[in-house]
């Protein structure tokens, strides 16, 4: 690939191993990217359902979901539009805790996360278990703002951030993978930033 005439690195080289390929550090800014209108449904009316291939499908109310033992993620997030943001703190409930109640069947291998807006994103079950995924309602100690997916957002920080569905209301467990919203619209099915899996075919 050709060198771009006159272009040079302006940002300092990041700490080794911290920035996935093709990403930049957005610093204090936190860009907002959405495809649909921000839902106005009040937090108190929010529900979260885990169903599909589970022994005990379950729906939690807003207060029930927050009664789980808290779980916190401290670390970085990576958006497919090439920004990364370091040292974020998100608090909520571990997806492991939700699945322990719902009890996935042996056939369950994938998850389709649904938002109240109709947005969906697909994930291998292995990517949301083992302490790798959360449903969160706080960022940096404050309620998660609407524009960033509040009151309730899926958080899967080891994958590109479109997998962390804003305004999440349902996790459906499935035997087969089924493309979600961006995945049908050209984005990668898994979305590992370290492998730069941005688009279909990457």
């Amino acid at each position: 690939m050709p060198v771009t005439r006159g272009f040079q690195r302006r940002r300092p080289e990041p700490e080794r191993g911290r920035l996935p390929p093709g990403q930049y550090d957005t610093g204090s800014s936190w860009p907002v990217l959405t495809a649909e209108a921000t839902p106005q449904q009040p937090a108190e009316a929010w529900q979260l359902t885990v169903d599909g291939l589970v022994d005990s499908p379950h729906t939690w109310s807003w207060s029930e979901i927050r009664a789980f033992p808290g779980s916190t993620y401290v670390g970085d997030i990576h958006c497919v539009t090439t920004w990364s943001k370091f040292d974020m703190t998100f608090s909520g409930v571990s997806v492991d805790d939700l699945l322990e109640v719902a009890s996935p069947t042996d056939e369950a291998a994938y998850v389709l996360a649904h938002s109240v807006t109709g947005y969906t994103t697909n994930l291998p079950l292995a990517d949301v278990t083992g302490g790798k995924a959360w449903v969160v309602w706080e960022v940096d100690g404050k309620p998660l703002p609407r524009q960033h997916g509040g009151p309730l957002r899926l958080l899967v920080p080891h994958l590109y951030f479109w997998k962390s569905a804003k305004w999440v209301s349902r996790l459906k467990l499935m035997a087969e993978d089924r493309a979600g919203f961006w995945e049908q619209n050209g984005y990668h099915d898994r979305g590992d930033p370290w492998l730069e899996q941005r688009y279909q075919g990457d």
Partner: protein
Amino acid sequence: MAPAPLAAWTDGRIIEKDHPTAHTVRLRMHVDDRPFHLPGQHYLIRLRAPDGYTAQRSYSVASDSDDPLLEFLVERQPDGEVSEFLADVAEVGDVLELRGPIGRWFVWDGRTPALCLVGGTGVVPAVAMARTARRLGRTDLLRIAAVGRAPDELAYAPELQRYGADLAWTRADVDGRAPGAFTADELAPLVEGVGIAYACGSARFASYAEELLLACGLDASSIRVERFGPTGD
């Protein structure tokens, strides 16, 4: 149906460059064997330093697919690593890496009655849609409402005016209309009969546009949003 893989990186040469407003640069580029694109889609532009360092950003396409060149409008961001380079350093004849077209959601099919409510450099996809509507002879299907600070600060303002777009200025008193974005009363007639509304602009503009479209009676499921830039908080 498995989604088609995205085209690989390719080279594009800058054929024309100008500055429609003080804060924007317009690039018209040639790409060999360029694939068809729909209005509303975007491309990635990637810059490569001698040490191998790269920076890439996505930019909406302003041109219709039939245009022999691919047109981008880039707003200069404060300390913008890519936008400042494109505005100040890149010259006609330079070759940049491109990848696209990308996005199958914020696109107009040329058949559905639609409204674009766009602000600032968010006008770019609306310009592409307008150009496609003209080519198809279906400008009756596409209405555009665009918001800018003032006529000399909104890229493509003359073209949008010629198209018949409604324009609102937040910092200028034009033709006796007090400064300000569109009100629900102004927008409501444009919403009538529309199947899809496209809202594009900054995070702040997109929030305003969503609320206004909902207030005008549009269903949330028929609103498609493209936001860019930081939250401002």
